[in-house]
């Protein structure tokens, strides 16, 4: 069985100082029969270490396409994506898998947990593919669950958890291999407003305390206010890229909201 730990696909250590995310004139087309959908039309953006970016825009404006490229789930049709200084287009599938596994944590709108698999095992999963020993895996998964406030739900199955709790398990899973970058595509899209703020509280904490670089897609203006910078997409182009002026603290907002039974 080939192990990947012995040969890191990219020499990340030398690039500690490199910009985590640099996108240069990225285009993305989808061929649908005769028609060609131009989902991204020249995106250039740089995201620095420790940033917390909210990507906004109407449905169909290319946000998910952009996130999938950042997450190395998909490649650009043209243009360049440098992840910590490495041109991702030069990597093979195995190396891309290693980046998804260790460099990036991805959180989805639909949670995407494995059903009939406990919260702990779900959180543990990326560590399995990182060939981390079982003992270490479990302790890391427990730690990650504790970080999202679900230490007591480790043995629960997704079907026994609320939407907010499921999304927190997904966040714990994204954190278990201690990535430097967290990508979240509408993580609060399926959640009610209070639960959404709870998730944002976790993101803010990770950003502040761990220095995690976060890129988050949302179409809700209120949610974007928890980030530090907002980028607005329209028709595959960046329309606006600005700092958030009235930044909200989720922990404070939560105090003003009525508490719910969890």
């Amino acid at each position, binding site marked *: *069985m080939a192990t990947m730990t012995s040969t890191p696909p990219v020499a990340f250590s030398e690039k500690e100082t490199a910009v985590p995310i640099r996108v240069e004139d990225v285009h993305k087309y989808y061929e649908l029969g005769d028609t060609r959908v131009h989902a991204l039309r020249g995106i250039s953006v740089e995201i620095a270490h420790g940033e917390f970016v909210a990507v906004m825009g109407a449905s169909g404006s290319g946000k998910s396409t952009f996130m999938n490229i950042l*997450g190395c*789930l*998909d490649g650009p049709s043209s243009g360049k994506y440098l992840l910590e200084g490495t041109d991702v287009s030069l990597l093979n599938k*195995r190396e891309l*898998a290693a980046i998804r*596994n*260790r460099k990036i944590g991805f959180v989805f709108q639909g949670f995407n947990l494995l059903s009939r698999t406990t919260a702990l095992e779900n959180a543990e999963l990326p560590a399995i*593919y990182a060939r981390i020993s079982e003992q270490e895996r479990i302790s890391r998964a427990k730690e990650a669950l504790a970080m999202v406030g679900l230490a007591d739900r480790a043995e629960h199955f997704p079907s026994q958890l609320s939407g907010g709790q499921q999304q927190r398990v997904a966040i714990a899973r*994204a954190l278990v291999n201690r990535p430097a970058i967290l990508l979240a595509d509408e993580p609060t899209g399926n959640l009610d407003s209070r639960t959404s703020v709870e998730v944002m509280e976790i993101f803010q904490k990770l950003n502040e305390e761990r220095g995690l670089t976060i890129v988050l897609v949302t179409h809700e203006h209120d949610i974007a206010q928890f980030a530090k910078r907002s980028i607005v997409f329209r028709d595959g182009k960046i329309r606006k890229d600005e700092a958030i002026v009235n930044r909200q603290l989720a922990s404070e907002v939560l105090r003003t909201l009525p508490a719910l039974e969890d």
Partner: protein
Amino acid sequence: MELMATIRIALRAIARNKLRSCLTSLGIIIGVGAVIAMVALGQGAQHQVQQQIAAMGSNVLFVGSGTMNRGGVRLGWGNTKTLVYDDVAAIRRECPAVSMVAAGTGTSAQIVFGNDNWYTRITGTEPEYLDIRAWPLDEGTNFTQDDVQTAANVAVIGDTVRKNLFPAADPVGQTVRINSLPFRVIGVLSVKGSSVAMGNDQDDVILMPYTTVQKKMNGTQWLAYAMVSAQSKEASFAAQGQIEGVLRDRHRIRQPQDDDFFVRNMADVADLYDQQTTVMTLLLASIASVSLIVGGIGIMNIMLVSVTERTREIGIRMAIGATEDDVQRQFLTEAVVLSVMGGAIGIVSGLALSFLIPRVLGWPVSISTTAILIAVLFSIAVGVFFGYYPARKAARLNPIEALRYE
């Protein structure tokens, strides 16, 4: 991903759909079970034949008149009128490797006793015949060389004849009629059973002096065969050579000519039947292994369904860092675990079947560890072979499309 974790994931996926997994494994269970039971059956038959041949005496030789093969045409034996008693006497006299010889000639006739009658084989021979075939009497006595000299009307009957003509009475001393001639029954043979080498029911026979058969029934001077025993098993090949030399000499047969007789060595017969039963065993095993392949196709089918059903799961695993190899290994392991579990249950059921067959059907079996080993290896191979394509298909999925799959 380490092997234990992979196997654990596979076991969990299999346990998730217990009924389906069982039905999927059924093909392998039946295949492995059938292979083991069929090979046990074939080898049982083989051992039985070997035992029968051994019981008949591995030092026995059969000298037949005529030839099995003349000018490329296969002929029945006993149809040339060249083997005579002087040949038998010469074998007795001139072949040092031979210990006993008995002339043999045969016919069939209706035997009548009172109101009962029975149609059976008549073997005309000499007293040594029973010693050569190691065939003791149950009752009465054997006929003697005197009886041969005088062509006496005496008969030694086989057990089947006794059962049919003398269901109650003691046959020894009774008189039966054969071709309207009276014969005195002087002995009853012990039960010999059936034998593949010597014809079906060896006990359905009447023995008498060969002279009686020649003079009073067939009206000929010819013999059909001679039964010979060599000094030992090892001497049987030497005996064969000596007999062939003596008979060629007496029958004036030169090199390019075909013999007008043949000598069959029991060691040859044993080889012949060994070959036949081996072919039978292989045939049974290959028919049984067809179901292994059918079982493999069943696994492939279910794995393909499973890959489609779990497209989303595959997408999730890939999104969080599973490589193509990881995904492929996961599904391949699942297929192999399914087939190996089927193989294990198949071994148990094959052994159970091998245990039941002799008890229920009365057929001999002999369990072969080689067959079990091959069945296990084969079931692993089936899992790998038929699991490969579905696993490949899973590994080739595009993560984004897989994630979007509903």
